[in-house]
């Protein structure tokens, strides 16, 4: 009892801290813990090669769908090659491709590398507009000098 401050104002402050601190602490701890698994890095095929992305780790691979590389199996599986014009990755995907998936166009896939080096995509991210190149892909292509779009990368309104 004697440890508690005497003035009601200070007591109230202490009470507020005593209640709020654990909740905020819990929040911060949760955020740090959850961020460890949930942060998904984006690489182009050449970056993924350089960084030696470990097998089984969820990452995003983005680039252009190599022309003539799309093979659709009758079992619904799709194989294609993603390239940034420097390196390529073979991608396998089970499911329906987004409506705007096309050869020669930009794509972002999320998944993990299998032990044989094939990237097994869980998601092929839908692009909503044929004018639209995923921003990460455009930036990566610009960095590697393979960009062939408007200079600022923006679509004009």
């Amino acid at each position, binding site marked *: 009892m004697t440890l508690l401050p005497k003035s009601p104002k200070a007591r109230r402050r202490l009470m507020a801290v005593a209640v709020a601190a654990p909740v905020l602490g819990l*929040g911060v701890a949760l955020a740090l813990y959850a961020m460890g698994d949930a942060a998904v890095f984006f690489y182009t095929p050449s970056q993924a090669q350089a960084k030696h992305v470990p097998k089984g780790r969820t990452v995003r691979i983005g680039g252009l769908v190599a022309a003539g590389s799309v093979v659709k199996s009758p079992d619904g599986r799709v194989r294609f090659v993603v390239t940034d014009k420097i390196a390529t990755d073979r991608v396998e995907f089970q499911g329906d491709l987004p409506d705007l998936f096309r050869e020669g166009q930009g794509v972002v896939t999320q998944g993990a590398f299998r032990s044989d080096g094939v990237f097994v995509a869980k998601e092929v991210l839908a692009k909503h507009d044929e004018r639209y190149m995923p921003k990460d892909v455009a930036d990566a292509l610009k960095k590697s000098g393979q960009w062939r779009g408007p200079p600022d990368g923006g679509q004009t309104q």
Partner: protein
Amino acid sequence: MIVELGAFALILAFALSAAQAGLSFAGRRGRNASLRGAGEGAALVAFAAIAFAFASLMTAFVTSDFSVLNVANNSHSEKPLLYKVAAVWGSHEGSMLLWDLALTGFGAAIVLAGGGLPTNLRSVTVGVQGLLGVLFIGYTAFASNPFVRVPNPPVEGASLNPILQDPFLAIHPPFLYSGYVGFSVVFSLCVAVLIEGRVDAAFARWVRPWALAAWSLLTIGITLGSFWAYYELGWGGWWFWDPVENASFMPWLAGAALLHSAIVTEKRGALTGWTVFLGLAAFSFSMLGAFLVRSGILTSVHAFAVDPKRGSILLGILAVAAGGGLGLFAWRAPDLKPGGLFAPVSREGALVLNNLFLATAALMVMVGTLYPLIYQAITGQPLSVGAPFYNLAFGLLMAVILLVMPVATLLSWKRADAKGAVQRLWAAALTVVGAVALAFLLQNPKTGFAILGVALGVWLIAGALSELAHRIRLGATTLSDSVTRLTHLPRSALGMTLAHIGVGVFVLGACVELNGRVEVAKVLATGETVGIGAYHLTLSGVSTVEGPNFTAERARVDVNGPSGPGVLFPERRFYPANRQTVSQVAIDVHGASDLYVVFGERREGAKPTWLIRAYWNPFARLIFLGPLIMALGGALSLSDRRLRLVAGRKAVAAAQTKAAT
């Protein structure tokens, strides 16, 4: 001509907003009634001017005037009328004009409905709303003008992105923006209160109706968007923790916290500073959302312009408005009258806990949304933060606070009896046990999470009903007496019960759907069948149909299942104007559950085959019904007599007459 008049009206509205701010502040300073009146008049005329500008842009869209750049980029002469109208807010420039319309509309609403406010506070509020108008209308007029003409008009427009051509999405932005911008009134009121240095219980009574209206509209807006994503994108999901979705969710959470803290301020005169802070935070989150979505910093269906200049201007507006409001708070808040002491186990104590969790949850969503942007700005390495982060960081916090919710509503003010409150929930607890047993019998849930979800959802619904039963003394008195009590309950109490039931309905739907979803994908030739759960789907034929501005491949899928035979027609629509194919999902509704069929692409072979994807989404309807119940609860609360603005005005009039005599 009408377009030029619209452009003129936009500039005029900018000038009027500046006048609204200047005159109102001058009127407050000099205690001059005619200056104040002129400021309020400017607010009304600014609204009329923006409404005119908006109508003229709409005219340009409806008449397909492709000499206007914005129309040429976003419309097409063959588009159905509804989508010509919806295309007005389908582009960056048009959506900012819609934002301005809502902003000036709420400014006019303060003037027309704010009779209950003390004169000085009202003038400052109108003035601050005018300053917001200057910022946003100025941005629209000078950096993102929708009325720009092209020298050589194209013969045909580029049309609106086909996935946006949908009746629900057509009305999604107006609701969403009314919600976003509705918080601007709360923001202006909070800034005015800080300037005037007077925060008391009455302030909370003025803030609550605006917060309720904005929050309810935002709830409907988010739900419409989520429902659209559910059936239009064809992924079977309804919430993706996409940064743009989060941008609308953060003001929603802050608004929900505000609604609860304002009750404490109103009833107990406590938490005043915190309520003001939440009022500022809600609209700051709205503006942060506008910046995230409109600046091109994110790529998403909602992000239009990638013009970096616009992004910087929007960031500047965010910094000036939110920074100004919060800076003022930091400066003036220490002078606010501190609230009274209260016991931890009491209604107000529980509401503090609610606010603590809601605010932390909003903070978590903000961390997840901004972390990738900050990380990339520092290291140059792009990354994304996905659902696992939010499920853990957000979901766990919410689960804790929702568990306590039914108990909290039964606690009385000042000093409550926690044991008694828990005891009153025995019926709700029994219902939960029964529901979980029933779930085991019928569905055999595979995961512990699903059982917890069912338990939590039923607990919330039953808890809310128990609170209502306790209020009307159901069982403790005669039935007719209970009914009389029910009809005499204040509407805000019923609104609370309804909103809390809505939360329970949502939790129940979301948990069952996420854990019970069944998905199949199979390539079928005509005549072949695929099974999903208790249902069998047969692709019986594929035909070509012509739409107003698309050609569709339409599948006939025969459904056989426990509820008898049925037929579904999923489509793949090709829009020649955009050279884009969009799938049209077909949904067979079974009670609260959906059988959801997507007609995939054609695969050439010996005979043509198509990829058919089907989902069994149990209780999916509840996910969208829950938030609508919440919004209805908000609207019911808003109609409460105590909160009605006219009642406040009458009270002021009565007080004035009394003072005069």
